[in-house]
């Protein structure tokens, strides 16, 4: 049996996490969703021994402890993790935040709209794109 693609959601807001959950339900591809509340938890999860890298990390910026920007930076600097697509999902439209994330290697930057349906539909699009359309990195062993 092939493992389901894994999505890590770094999000401290239960409401927003639920919106992502709702979005996953509307996607055709089934996924394993791992939700963590903090950046530290995200890194700990990624450092566990695993068969395959996660298919996607959805990263909120404003999270407790190590914030999303720093977590992103650490992932993208780590040669064993940097191929994981990290998509930032934030309320901040501040160009400074956007610049910071793209420079750190974010694969995309999305705004969270206040309107629930817009938010949910945006998440559906993001998941479909990264899980169905994009060809993921071939995985470990190839780079060697």
């Amino acid at each position, binding site marked *: 049996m092939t493992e389901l693609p894994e999505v890590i959601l770094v999000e401290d*807001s239960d*409401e*927003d996490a*639920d*919106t992502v959950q709702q979005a996953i339900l509307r996607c055709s591809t089934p996924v394993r969703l791992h939700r963590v509340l903090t950046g530290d938890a995200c890194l700990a999860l990624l450092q566990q021994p695993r068969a395959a890298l996660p298919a996607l990390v959805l990263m909120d*910026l*404003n999270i407790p402890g190590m914030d999303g920007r720093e977590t992103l930076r650490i992932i993208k600097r780590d040669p064993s993790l940097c191929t994981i697509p990290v998509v930032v999902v*934030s*309320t*901040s*439209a*501040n160009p*400074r935040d956007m610049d910071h994330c793209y420079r750190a290697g974010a694969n995309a930057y999305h705004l*969270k*709209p*206040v*309107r*629930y*349906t817009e*938010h949910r539909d945006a998440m559906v699009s993001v998941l479909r794109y990264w899980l169905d359309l994009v060809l993921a990195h071939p995985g470990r062993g190839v780079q060697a």
Partner: protein
Amino acid sequence: MTPLGAPPPPAWHGQAYSTKRFGVSITDCDSEPVQTPGCVQAHGALLVLRPADLTIAQVSENSTDVLGMAPAALLGRPLQDLVGPVHAGLLLAMLQQPEIERNPGYAFTHTAAHSGVALDASVHTVDGVAVLEFEATGRDASAQRDFYALIRRSVAQLQRATTLSALGDIACAEIRALTGLDRVMVYRFHDDGHGEVVSERRRDDLPSWLGLHYPAQDIPEPAREVFRQTWIRPLRDVDGGLAELLPLTHPDSGRPLTMTHCALRGPSVMYTEYLRNMGVAATLTMSIRRGDRLWGLIAGHHYSAPFQMPYDLRAACELLAQIVSLQHAAAEEREHAAYRQRIDSVQQQLVTQAAQEGGLEALLDGPPTLLDGLDTGGTALYHRDRWWCAGNTPPVQALDALRDWLSARPEMLLRDRPLFATDQLSAHYPPGQTFADVASGLLAIALSRSAKNLVLWFRPETTQTVHWGGNPHDKPSVVGPHGARLTPRASFALFVESVRGRSKPWLAVELEAALRFRMLMMELIIARADQLAGLNADLERSNDELDAFAYVASHDLKEPLRGIHKYAHQLAENMAQLGDADHQRLAGLTRLTLRMDSLLDSLLHFSRVGRVALQLEDCEVGEIVDEALEMVAARRGDKPAAIDVPRPLPSVRADRVRLREVYTNLLSNALKYNQQATTVIELGWLAPHETAARTAQAAHTSDKGWPAAASGQTVFYVRDNGIGIEPRHIDQVFKMFRRLHGRDDFGGGTGAGLTIVKKLVERLGGEVWIESTPGQGSCFYFSMPADPGLGTAP
């Protein structure tokens, strides 16, 4: 013919000189042999003696009148035959004393046998001969004066003088009191040789000469040389005539007599004529020396009559002149110390003022100002890319060129002494000729290493400041009996040329004060830089805090908002059994969250408007308006709207994106707040000359709605036929989140649009204002300065 360049031989070529015979032939004062005039003033008699046996080698031709014996009866005879063995013995003893070499001393008083007149005899030695001079004593036995007591008082006063002018004033007063001369002056030689009357005491009815300047030629070099060697020079009677020595040269050596130290030395024809031109009858002149340098003269003039100056009076005056010379350096030092103190106190005050007011304006606003420190005609300071001027200075363009020139001078690049000073700028810097009147003298210090920032002090040309004693425009030149040639005034024109382009020189104390001022300024500038760095840090901190606030607004406040919206949405979706009223409430909840969201977005946008750097470029306003119209097209909806552009919009230097935002906001408002069947919007502009005229008209009609600052700027306007604004609301429309209508009327909105417009326009250096008639429409104006981005509101 005389070869070019060589002076013609004098008229007495090959013969001994005598003023009486050849004085009139003098064409050049500087060649006159004033130390060997061969003549004495005719009121006294002079004998040249062989020191060994006191035989008479030469005698003045007037010996018969003065002494009662003809020259022929005296020449070759021992002195004893004239004055008797006692006086001759006394003289012989005196000649053993070395003090009398070139220094006349009183020998004895001889009563002329033929006239009964008492004659003082004084003696000195020079060039191996003894010179014995006889003059009437002028003493009245009943009015013996105690010169010692008088002088002691004078000396005490001179010692107390704290300035050179006080010293000069005391000297004049004391000498006048001692002698009774009509006028006593201190005459100072400036570095270029010309003279100035710096102190004066005079008979009340005489005009003052204080402050008058005289050409250097008025006191020719040979005369100055005499005053370097002798302390005093009396001329008893300008019209007294001359008596020649017999023979004119010494019979043993064949040399003319050196008369430098003789009280009776005959004056040059030039000198007596000069005095006669001024109406002077007698003079007494003393030197003021600083070391070997002749600093000036104490000049006494007597007008009413010949002036009797007996030996003891002359000796007293001579002593005073020596004391003035001795006290001179001390008085000058005290004066400079006081001047230094005054400059320092003014400069300290200025820098303190500037530090408190935080601007260099304080240096020039006063009182005091930079002009009150150094004695100067004008001053200019270059700092922060502009000139700050006070007093008389060259124009700014000339200052710029001068600054460029100065910054290349090696003196200005010295680390500890970046200073350049001259009293003749045009000699170093030829373009300086054009402003020589105000700035012949320049003292410059650098405030920065590259000499980019400077302080300049200017001194006017001397001819601009002085009163010429010999100015032919003040009084006609008097032509003497020997013709204009012998009139010293003729030298005046030449003299004016010689001081053209020159100023009063800078004193060492002034240069040092300028350098101290530099130190104070540097400290001030460094302190300012620290202060600014502190302010910048504060500003950065407050910007960061604003960012943090914006972040909080965008993220932390929105997060719960999103949650509320979501639950309201889900409730409405899932609870079909809810009544209509509850549905409405849920719909209201949803709408409020969205409204809150747009308020937060506006707030965020507004906080960024002021801080994003401007990107200035030349923008075609027409193109920008087209883009803005496209962006607001959605809002136009189905309602007809006519956009009228009466004449093509110009090009301005501005930030394209921000200018477009101004237009989108104004156009969007114009479209929104309109209830006419057809919305009509006019987009126009006023050129600088038109705004100038419009501003003048507004001032004339006391129209307070039109800002004075708009004069000369390009002004754009957006005029609509909309609902208009009540006058009492006009000030409110620019306030953040301030709406004049129900929040859902006219398509809703956050009420931030005009606040953002105002901030954008101010950021670009302009102003926004409104003319409006309720029910008829509004016109929004905004101005664009020629040099945008320099607006005060960031």
